[in-house]
């Protein structure tokens, strides 16, 4: 058995799914899970004090802070079977690549991305499916980044987002430092070399695509950092680079060895599981 598709799983029991969902890293906070479920279940905004149906007009009222309750780990025990299945398909098998799936995976990635030091994130509760600003990110250097997530980035979606960014910037008197387009797939005709003019400022767009493949472990493996300092399910990361970014943030640094226990999450017996060294090096903090 492997964790590639929900439908091909031998064991779809709530217990097993819950067990796997518990392994998703970084952990969901309480507010994150609420917003996630509200978005996925298409329910009304949880903390929505803004307009309910203002899809096409982005206003600051649509945006709510997310992930600030960093100490409040979400309670995953009360999730319904449908919700478990959806979580599995988005975060574990990653077989879902629609806009919502890409958006929530991108949010998870924001938490350990090495090139960004995120200070706070605001989340758009009323996104437009054709293209909207999904996250407003503030970095530790007080830079403002606007992120828009897509399953497939087409030129007209790109242009729509640009126009929304310009409108939003004028309305809120905000000059973003960076505009990020996060997508699973992109057409090649996106004019990444053309700066976007926002009021008086020119910003070069940033395209981020979901990585596939480049790693030394499988999603079914258990990754053990040093002497069990961290235990990480392989399905959380689809590149060694992401794994190292996460390990960097969640260890004290120094000499790091990462081992993998092959097929830990799908093995029938726990005996004689092979353990390999996959990375050895130093992380200076």
């Amino acid at each position, binding site marked *: 058995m492997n964790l590639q598709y929900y439908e091909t799983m031998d064991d779809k029991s709530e217990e097993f799914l819950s067990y796997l969902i518990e392994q998703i890293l970084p952990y969901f906070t309480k507010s994150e899970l609420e917003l996630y479920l509200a978005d996925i279940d298409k329910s009304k905004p949880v903390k929505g004090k803004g307009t309910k149906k203002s899809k096409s007009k982005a206003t600051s009222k649509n945006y709510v802070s997310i992930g600030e309750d960093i100490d409040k780990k979400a309670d995953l025990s009360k999730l319904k079977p449908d919700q478990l299945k959806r979580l599995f398909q988005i975060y574990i098998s990653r077989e879902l690549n629609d806009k919502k799936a890409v958006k929530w995976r991108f949010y998870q990635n924001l938490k350990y991305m090495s090139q960004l030091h995120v200070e706070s994130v605001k989340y758009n509760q009323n996104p437009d499916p054709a293209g909207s600003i999904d996250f407003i990110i503030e970095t530790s250097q007080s830079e403002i980044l606007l992120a828009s997530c897509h399953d497939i980035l087409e030129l007209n979606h790109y242009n729509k987002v640009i126009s929304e960014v310009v409108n939003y910037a004028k309305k809120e008197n905000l000059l973003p430092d960076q505009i990020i387009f996060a997508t699973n*797939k992109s057409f090649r005709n996106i004019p990444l070399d053309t700066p976007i003019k926002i009021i008086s400022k020119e910003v070069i767009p940033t*395209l981020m695509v979901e990585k596939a493949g*480049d790693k*030394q472990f499988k999603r079914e493996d258990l990754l053990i950092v040093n002497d069990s300092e961290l235990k990480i399910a392989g399905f*959380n*990361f689809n*590149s060694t680079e992401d794994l190292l970014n996460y390990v960097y943030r969640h260890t004290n640094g120094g000499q790091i060895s990462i081992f993998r226990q092959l097929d830990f999450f799908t093995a029938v017996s726990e005996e004689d599981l092979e353990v390999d*060294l*996959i*990375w050895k090096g130093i992380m200076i903090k």
Partner: protein
Amino acid sequence: MGFKKVDYDELKTKIGPNFLGIPLREGGKLIEKTYREKKVETSYTGSFSDVVILNEEFLEYDHDNLGKRISILGNGNISVFNNSIKDRIWDTNLQFTGSQFDDQKDENNINLGIFEPSSNKVLKYEIVTSDELSELVKVFEKIENKVEDLESISSTDGNSSEVKTNNYILRLGMENEVTFAISIENVSNSPLEKIKFKKFLPDNFYDTEFKSNTSKDFKITRNSIECSLNKLNPGEKTEILISTKVFPKKKENIKTGKFEISFHLIEKVISGVKINHFSGYSHAMHAIKKSEKNYAPNHWQCSLIFENHSDFKMKLKSILIYDKSRSKKILEQDFSDQGGSTVVLPRGKFQSEYFDYIDKKEPTFTRKVKYSVDYKVESNSTIVSKYDENTFEVANVLIKKKIAEEEIKSFQESRINSRIIINNEGTIPVKGLRMTERIPEDFLPPRDISEYKLYRSSGALELADLEIKVIPDDDDPLHEHLLELSVNLKNNRLDSVIEVEDFLEIKYPLKAITPDYKKAYDFPLKVYSYYPKSTDVDDNNEFFTIMDDLSKMDQSAIKISHKRRKVMVGKEIFPGRSSNEFAIYIVARNGSNIKLSDVSVTDTFPDSFELISANLNYDVSKSNKDGEQKISFTIDTILPFQEREIMYYLKNISTTDVNQSELESYFVG
């Protein structure tokens, strides 16, 4: 999870599942992390791994149809592979040189950062000063038409014109067997491997056959022939022979077909890019072992140990040990004398020579150890050499001969006006012309050049462009003569004698001296059309010639008539009902095979008679002799062996009797 930033170049050029649409051709300088490709064989055996630097270049040489180089496009990759499945390499540094790194002259020392296990990075470059690159192969395509009446002649020493643009001639309306002989010579100083040859042939060709002394493995498809050739060492040459057939049914442009040769150069890059140095660190440990001597307290025997903890071979370059304050150099080992370094095998250990040190406490030292992972460099080049095609010319002339006189009389001297018309129905002008006509006995060609007239649509040709030769050069009609007429061959003043779709008309008189109607005279005519081998108008040393003869069907035969006249005119007098009436009956009989025209018959009768009537128009006039009248008739035509009758009636008007004797007058007819 995991998102990766993609820049503009990657979006346009990178191939991957994240990108929709056709990628652009890669170019410029890009450093990217890629997956390991199978083409580099890993030497990982469980305990040994290596770092491979693969420098590959891809060049495309384009040549025109003369074999002259038009352009070279090329790019190269320097790929660094970490073949270990567990060990990382870090702080990697690549130094290279090469005149082709136009925009990287200042950056030929590149820090490539960290290599994860089983990963690689690629540095791409374009070869920008490609004009300076020399040719690696010398290729010559010789195209020959084996059709029988196409000859090749040369007025020089017969050197083949390898650098000229040749005309390739096909005959219209017949099967042409064409051979393409392509010779390939390795003019580089490296062996050429994995040579592939491909020739494209247009649809017009059929029955294609292939021969090569170095390859029997070939594939013929509808439009191409391709084969693999054996390795060619420097200076070696191989030849490919393709024979095929073509039947031009109309005036059309048939191409000779492009061809291309691809090959590999092993262990060599064309551009001159050179990997000078690569260094990187992997897992290793070094320490100084200090042991206090048993027999001498405070005397320490020390040595440096270096342990390789990685799967790579390590090159230990130098060891430098000072005392703690770095004021005194204790040990210096530079391995540059040993080929630049000493190699420590995976999990191996190196121990330096011992050195003694006196200290009351455990001594401490300052040390610097220089080392790097070992690497190997592989290089190869893939070259495609392309050659453009020519166009076949179609050659064809149509000859007609006309004689103004339909017939001549036997055994009589007469003049025949001969007219020969040559139409150019091909796609290439006729540069020169030679015409031979065999003049049989009893006939003589003119020996005076001024009697020959040549015309084209643009007007008459000057006699300076004409040369005639009569063999033997005499006026004896007892033997045959050969008339040879050359146009624009001696002085070669004209660009062409007959342009495409134009004609040349040659007029000259022949003398028939004593034509015998019993003999069958034949005037065999051959026309040799000269087409220059080279398209260069100044180069007229070599020609293709095509001979056409006038078929007997098209010959305008001379009819020699043998005609002799034979005529008889008779007169008979018949008495009338009364004694003074007479009827005169005249008969003209043509006993020959010649038509007689305007036969004049004149009779006389006395004045005492009156003309009553006649069956033909007549003319009566006073005779010169007194007492007589003259009557004249003209018979317009008497066909061969035909009789024509004239009857006229007379009546005596005098009082005296007349007798018949008076009517038996002087008769002219």
